[in-house]
């Protein structure tokens, strides 16, 4: 008998700031730490290392929410990358020199080191300042390993919002299911 293979959503893995993130606007519940508060133009921030699970989805949707402090030029970007790892230890085996902890990443060398990361996608911004939250599915990807962490590089030409109430990076598992 033939069986259809359909898809369903798993539980999202959501990087956001523990201090002030609110799920009200996004519907995503925070699971891991990433403080995007006030990230300057040209600077990058890395999140805590996450465990995608010994068994995991083959594909994830990457969904982001960002808020820019001062209206950027339309079409500028916030770039999002992935550092993968075989190890569950924060600082071990991470691509692109990531630390596995919520911190600034490779200050002054971002454009050099980002080439060793997986580019998940970029959010193309509108010319809207804070109070307007910009959300997008920026890509789909297949994680090459069990562990990993996102890295957000601000190329908006403006700083991110001084609070992180609405900002997050979410991986939504898209699980194949045999009927």
């Amino acid at each position, binding site marked *: 008998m033939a069986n259809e293979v359909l898809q369903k959503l798993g539980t999202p893995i959501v990087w956001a700031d523990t201090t002030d993130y609110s799920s009200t606007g996004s519907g995503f519940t925070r699971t891991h730490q990433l403080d995007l508060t006030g990230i300057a133009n040209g600077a990058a921030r890395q999140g805590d290392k996450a465990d995608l699970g*010994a*068994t995991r*989805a*083959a594909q994830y949707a990457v969904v982001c929410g960002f808020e820019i402090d001062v209206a950027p030029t339309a079409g500028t970007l916030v770039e999002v990358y992935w550092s993968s790892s*075989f190890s569950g230890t924060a600082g071990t085996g991470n691509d692109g020199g990531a630390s596995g902890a919520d911190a600034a990443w490779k200050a002054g060398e971002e454009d050099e080191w980002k080439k*060793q990361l997986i580019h998940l996608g970029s959010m193309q911004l509108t010319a809207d300042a804070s109070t307007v939250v910009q959300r997008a599915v920026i890509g789909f990807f297949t994680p090459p390993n069990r562990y990993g962490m996102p890295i957000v590089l601000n190329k908006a030409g403006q700083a991110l919002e001084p609070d992180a109430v609405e900002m997050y990076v979410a991986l939504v598992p898209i699980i*194949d*299911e*045999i009927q």
Partner: protein
Amino acid sequence: MANEALVKNGTPIVWANSGDYSSTGSGYTRTHQMNPGGLGSDQAWQGVKADLGATRARVYAVYACVSFDSSPTAGGIVEVWWSESADATAGVGNTGGASGTDLGYTPDYEEWKEQLRRIGALAVTADNGVAERQFIGFLYPQQRYGMPIIINIANTDFTTDGIERYIAIVPLINEVQ
């Protein structure tokens, strides 16, 4: 009853140097020999032939880690290629003229690499003696046996020690729950 179809890691196959490789920085345990210690720029090196198994994963995640003797110019690369074979004997049936042993690869690599499968390239930063790790790409092996070949196009020699250097392929196994 519906069953989820998920993915899990298998046991990585890791090429590194038996003399001095340490898994401390990577978490990967060495399984096969490959020692391109001090490999010069515009030179290539091959690892020993590995058996991926009579039954094996459909796809593998390929990782590379290198470090340099002096700071290279950012933008240089280290290319990673794959030679395949249907035969377990080291020197038999290898694509692209690979030997199946831990050895320098032909100086004519620019010519011969076109007979290999290109996995990807590590983008080098301008850092000296720093372990540079990168997911290189996905490998879909077409044969049971194979070996990696790396080409240094970074304009700087590799470090002579192999403490941090490896090529790892991580089986990504589909599993019905």
